[in-house]
């Protein structure tokens, strides 16, 4: 995890100050530096249902509009992460949908891993697992692994207690652990069937 607080890169700080002084074009550097991570988050969140570019644009537009509230003595990345997650949640809310972390139900989750008798390699299990997860769980994994958000931050976004976020994430990983098998045994095939 890269959660250690650092000062912002000087060129990003200068860009923020320049934008605030009216030089909008200076925002380009921030887009260039952070596009990949934000697009990754939103693409995986949308899960192929639609192209992520529009929503990604929306996230940067929101960040631009709200730049007056950004503390330029801090790094821009973590702030942008939160704007991106907020944008995703707002987008679903506008559609009348909600991203709700349903209680972990292993039987349902097992079906997300692979079909009966299916045997797949570790990385494929995980890719498939993430793609088939309920949206809230996918977002949970992304917030943790793609954005390095703290459990506290994740719990705010999902409106769930920290303990519930940790517990659900752990149980989902436990299921994956069973599915991918022992690392020492790789690259053997693993099955999700027949586990206690």
């Amino acid at each position: 995890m890269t959660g250690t607080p650092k000062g912002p890169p000087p060129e990003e700080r200068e860009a923020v100050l320049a934008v605030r002084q009216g030089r909008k074009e200076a925002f380009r550097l921030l887009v260039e530096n952070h596009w990949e991570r934000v697009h990754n988050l939103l693409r995986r969140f949308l899960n192929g249902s639609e192209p992520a570019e529009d929503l990604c644009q929306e996230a940067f537009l929101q960040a631009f509009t709200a730049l007056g509230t950004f503390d330029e003595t801090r790094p821009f990345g973590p702030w942008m992460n939160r704007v991106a997650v907020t944008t995703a949640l707002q987008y679903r809310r506008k559609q009348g949908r909600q991203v709700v972390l349903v209680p972990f139900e292993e039987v349902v989750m097992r079906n997300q891993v692979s079909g009966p008798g299916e045997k797949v390699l570790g990385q494929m299990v995980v890719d498939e697992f993430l793609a088939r997860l309920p949206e809230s769980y996918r977002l949970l994994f992304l917030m943790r692994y793609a954005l390095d958000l703290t459990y506290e931050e994740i719990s705010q976004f999902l409106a769930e207690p920290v303990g519930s976020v940790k517990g659900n994430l752990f149980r989902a990983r436990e299921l994956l652990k069973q599915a991918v098998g022992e690392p020492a045994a790789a690259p053997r095939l693993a099955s999700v069937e027949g586990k206690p």
Partner: protein
Amino acid sequence: MNEPNLCCSRQAEIQAWLDGDLAPAARADFERHVADCPRCAAALKAFRHVDELVGAACRPGPEDRVQPARVDRVMQRILAAPAPGGTAPTPWTAWLAAARALPAGAWPALALALGVVVLVVALSWSARVPGPPPAVAPPGSSPGHQAAGETGFVFSLAAGSGAVPFLVDNGLPLATGPAGLLARGRHYELASGRKLRLDADFHGPFRELSPGLVTRLPVEITGPARFEPRPAGLLLESGQAACAFREPHPAFVVETPCGKVESLGTRFLVEVRPGETLVALEEGRLRLTTPTQERMLTGRQAVRLRRSGEIEPAGAPSTPAYSSSPAAAPPLPPAPRPDDQGADTLNQSY
């Protein structure tokens, strides 16, 4: 297979260890145990493997790469957008700024002028709406805003509220949760020059309340403000809250450093200032409670709650001042129902 993962009583600690939740001593102790326990060692290794795989699966792919054409497209939108920090004062904030510039004694007159303006705007608005009034959300019609198990008021961003990025939570953009819900017990800060519309949804037993009860109350907060959602209403540490509750509703409390303002069916404005809280009642009734006094307000009045606990009348203006400065008319706080039934039908049990 996986037998090494079974049957060690300390495997429950693995999650805490992975999450960094163990105190240093417990962490060291568990690590010593892992060195001697092949089962825990294997489980830990497997979890790390999963974390590596998940980390890899969450990394950006080629389709996420930044491309000049993509940056150009987003920059086109940004160049066309209003400048950031363009916290252009709304008429409302202009009014506030003017109010702050006035000597304390002049504030109530202005506040009451505001009340009249709001009322006038409300009336002219309702006159423009023909036919039946828009339906008001009935109690319990907003499952999306129901926080599990919570009773009392639950706050969410009002529909169409564009203020999300301006609401700050510990210096970072607000996390409102999936339904736009604000969390109880958290302090929220609204940036200067911004305003925020909230819906306060009441959850709980309605038995003692009248059937026409409205359980979604509109609250408008004007920045710079600091507040905290509470089951009974809002804790307003600084800033201004305008409440336009014109129908019977559950008691709604605005707590301020100088005392409590309890709405009993009303339209009112609360502003927290250094050492005092100003309350302007436009219509309806309020119950005010300070550490030393309790007072009912009815009708159009303005008072000042002092840090000492005193409640002082802040005087009533003899003539409305709004007509002399129509440009300062604030936007209407959350829309009133055109067929206002008046505030006094509220259940009297409070």
